[in-house]
């Protein structure tokens, strides 16, 4: 299977702190790939490097055979990478549908004069976009909530809406930053199914940051473990579970032997 995204020795520093250190990752197409690690291990920083929010000092990131290093985040989105955020960042004063319509922005063409003069092409495009939004709304299970302001939605719905917004640009790859954070076991179970569904039905590659080990072990095909910005392990869930360094990183050295996983 070909790799859709390759990171080569990516390094990102903030002043004296190296948040991501010579990290190399290869993500196969149509896979579910997880990045885990203790708090402050540099997972979100790595996401921010991929989506162009940060510019890494060293290394290269190749997506679909082309380097995306140095591109701005809107260009990276257009290339086919979409993301969600650890602390939900919806457009909170827009309705759910409007959030989904904004998500379709890069696929649409209208600028100033189309809407002003109400050209046929613009109307067709708006109509199609609205239909697509309603379809997405159904898909993420928010039917009948489309006209609510995003900030008035319950927490779980907001999480799903954020994923819906990311899906609206028809990405090839989806970056999910702790999608089950703050969810109860039932919701978590549903989210896990939903993520698998995204990959199986839509063929989207999923890159996941997650704290819930059950989720990670349950759905990932491959896992990379970060600690202090460095990769300390990589492999299938099985490999990771038995890896001594990973246990140490999570539990602190010395205590590792005493606690039974």
């Amino acid at each position: 299977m070909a790799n859709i995204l390759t990171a080569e020795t990516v390094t990102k520093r903030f002043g004296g702190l190296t948040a991501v250190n010579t990290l190399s990752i290869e993500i196969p197409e149509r896979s579910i790939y997880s990045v885990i690690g203790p708090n402050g291990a540099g997972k979100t920083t790595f996401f921010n490097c991929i989506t162009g929010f940060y510019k890494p000092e060293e290394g290269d990131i190749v997506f679909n055979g082309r380097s995306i290093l140095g591109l701005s985040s809107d260009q990276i989105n257009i290339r086919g990478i979409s993301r969600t955020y650890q602390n939900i960042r919806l457009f909170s004063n827009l309705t759910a549908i409007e959030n989904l319509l904004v998500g379709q922005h890069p696929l649409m063409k209208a600028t100033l004069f189309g809407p002003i003069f109400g050209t046929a092409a613009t109307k067709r495009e708006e109509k199609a976009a609205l239909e697509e939004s309603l379809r997405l709304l159904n898909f993420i299970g928010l039917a009948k909530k489309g006209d609510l302001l995003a900030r008035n939605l319950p927490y779980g719905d907001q999480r799903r809406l954020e994923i819906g917004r990311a899906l609206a640009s028809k990405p090839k790859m989806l970056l999910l930053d702790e999608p089950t954070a703050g969810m109860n076991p039932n919701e978590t179970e549903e989210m896990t199914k939903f993520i698998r569904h995204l990959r199986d039905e839509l063929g989207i590659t999923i890159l996941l940051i997650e704290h819930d080990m059950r989720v990670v072990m349950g759905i990932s095909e491959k896992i990379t473990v970060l600690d202090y910005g460095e990769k300390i392990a990589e492999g299938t869930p099985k490999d990771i579970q038995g890896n001594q360094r990973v246990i140490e990183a999570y539990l602190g050295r010395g205590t590792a032997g005493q606690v039974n996983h």
Partner: protein
Amino acid sequence: MRQRFLNRINFTDIALGIIGTALVGLIVVGSFKTLAEGNYTTRQWLDFVVFGIAQGSIYALIALGYTLVYGILRMINFAHSEVFMAGSFTAYFAAASMAKSGFLETNTFVAVLILFAIAMATSTAIGVLVERVAYRPLRRAPRLVPLITAIGASFVLQYTFKGLYGDQFKAYPEIDTLKGSYTWGDINITKVQVVVILSAAFLMLLLYLYVQFTKTGKAMRAVAEDKDVAALMGIDVDAIIVRTFALGAALAGAAGILYAITFRQVNFFMGFIPGIKAFTAAVLGGIGNIPGAMLGGIFLGLFESIGPILFLDGLNVPAPYQLKDVIAFSMLVLVLLFRPSGILGERLSRTKA
């Protein structure tokens, strides 16, 4: 490699590059021509420098108010220019009555101290009031909201003082004791300028010591670093914020007196231009950075007093002094574009900026 290079370049950078190059080119050509023509003597240039430093130290005092508040709230106190105006406008009445009774001449030192006290007290009161009304209730609101209330407060203050004291310019009395000047070689410095520079330097030193060594000062720095953590450590964040506003306002009040003895004219609108200039100075030195504001003020003062002649005279621009505000504002734009962290400031992360 080539692709990566192309990736990195975008439209904005190119446009900014062109603007920057054009302005720098203009400055270089202008300065070169002015110097080549040699219409100005060394003495004149030195006068500009002295004037610039005096003017700059006033800017620096006001700039400290912006920087202190920004450091702690990450917000620009838009009403700060009115805080500056309030002090010196109010102290005018004391100055006028002391001039009438002759006290101003017989006991100049005490009289000026009284003026400082009145101006600083008024400004402090106004500064604390602004914090109470325009900032405190909105601590968790979106950024645009306190910004707009502060703009509102700025206009309320301007027109309240206009209503209270009238809309004419009031002429500060001239103090005979402070007439005249000292000369060393080509350097000529008026007594007023000496007073301005020394008082500003003294106040800045005092502020620096206060922030570095007192308990409140340390708490201020802690709050500036991280409000939530500071609150957890048992610091009363609201009280510290009030003190920060008060401190900045007191300095602005003092600056108001220095401004008044330099230009000897006050009215309700006097805060606007020095306010923006001081803000520029604060940005120039790196907003949130106390020594930066001092340096930025002096630098802007020099730039503004030398700049118009140096850059524009050689280009045959008539009356270049009319454009000194344009130069200051352009400076602000350039700094924000090319070095938003200022001369001394550390680069603010994107979330903070």
